[in-house]
């Protein structure tokens, strides 16, 4: 029966798509709990009338004009790819096995 802290960790690992080794789970779960406990100090502050600050860029640069710029050569774009076939990236089956 997984500990609630471990359950939280495993859910996060599933969402984040990180395969964890079983032996790391307890330690990571502890780290998660301890860190959250330390962060809990923020809950004591009164922020009811304060808007979240999402970005420091308050007078941002302009957007782009709609002009075409050269794309990367396919060779350079795909140079680091693990598998390429017919000019496309070949990746494990997204539809999960037998069709």
């Amino acid at each position: 029966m997984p500990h609630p802290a471990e359950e939280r960790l495993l859910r996060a690992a599933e969402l984040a798509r990180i395969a964890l080794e079983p032996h790391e789970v307890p330690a990571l779960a502890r780290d998660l709990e301890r860190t959250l406990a330390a962060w809990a100090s923020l809950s004591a502050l009164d922020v009811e009338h304060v808007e979240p600050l999402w970005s420091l860029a308050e007078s941002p640069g302009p957007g782009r004009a709609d002009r075409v710029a050269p794309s990367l050569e396919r060779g350079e774009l795909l140079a680091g790819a693990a598998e390429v076939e017919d000019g496309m990236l070949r990746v494990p089956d997204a539809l999960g096995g037998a069709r």
Partner: protein
Amino acid sequence: MTRPEPVIGLEVHCQLGTLSKLFCGCAHRFGAEPCTLACETCSGQPGALPVLNEDALDLALRAALALGCELVPRIAFDRKHYSYCDLPKGFQVTQARMPLGTGGSIELDSGCRVRIERIHIEEDAAKSVHRAGASFIDINRAGVPLVECVTAPELGSAHDARDCLVRLRELLVFAGAGECDMERGSLRCDVNVSLRAPDGTAGARVEIKNLNSFAHVHDALAHEIARQRGMLASGATIARETRLWDPERGETRAMREKESAADYRWLPEPDLPEVALDRARIARAAAALPELPMARRRRYRTELRIDPELTEVLLESPAKAEFFDAAVRHARDPRAIASWMANELRSLLRERAHGVATLDELPFKPFDFAELVELASSGRASRTAARTILREMLRTPRAPRELLRTLGLERIEEGPELDELCRRALEARPAALADLRAGKLRALEALLGAALALSGGRAHPDAARATLVRLVQEERP
């Protein structure tokens, strides 16, 4: 006992007709070689950043205004995280908190209005194909600008859903948002459908994907509604799920991939700071909108009295409607303009006469077209002659009046030439002549036919009739 009623909503994705992608300068083109239209930004390389394409925002604004939406005061983007092979950054940049427009509506053919819950800007995913136990990704489409339009779940039948999509597409095309071609993937539609029980309780919502044409939308919904009704009737529960339409089998089937409820971990996009949407920009977008299709349809049918069928031809594209409106400004009879556009001009374009296939390739202006139609309507040229002139106009930008003369197609309305033609017609049809002498006026048509044939269609029918009758009368001693 009343049947459970369908409750349908559409989710439509329309590619915006910009030259470059939403956040980078890569071109977006249909049919390019795979992975040749990508850069560090749209392929999600480390360190690459998005910069907003200003034209994409303008086109999206036009779409939102055309739908009658209320606009948001600031443009803000959000990251929507999920894991799939077609998502280069592991998240899609879209608008969640502040969609560009809300509260619009679209008018169906029946006159009902369907509410548009929201329209927002987002980037397209890459394209993936699956075969032989592997998946293949073409990055070209990643980052193409889209607007997503979501209707309220107010459609009540497969027929209405299809009509709604047709009207929505038409509106987006007229607004100039994009080409909206379902076959080329520049317009895509997912639907969601549930059944509402007679007591008003809503059933589980099923989403259907992989609908590549208007027909698919109709057929998939018809099938799914029947499927759900069948399940309810037999006491089975309908699962809330996503299904794929299989056009070959004519059925929807559950997607193989089991989806847990998605947790998108929304994050306001930190690389694209919020920008205020200023009034001047909105005004420019509004000014760029032409008369919208529904309003045009009403005007053509009721004010100009064009037949419904012809009206639909004129509304097939903004180019056609604009050409028509421009021609009508110089014409006496809009109905004649419409008829000539839908019939003669259309068949010449289909035939690619003189290599001209579309309206924008025409070497002549709407003004000239109006003049041609007037020549035909007024009788100065026979229909056949006018057709010949029109064909010639596709080759050379000369005025129709001039061509009438230079091609020798002027109507013969009077004079010795007409008399001579009629005499010959009378000689060629002795039986008809006898009938006419006997007072049988029906014979006149056969004689008229002969006179027209002899004149190569140039004899004016009324004048010819009158001449034939006069000649016969003059015979009498």
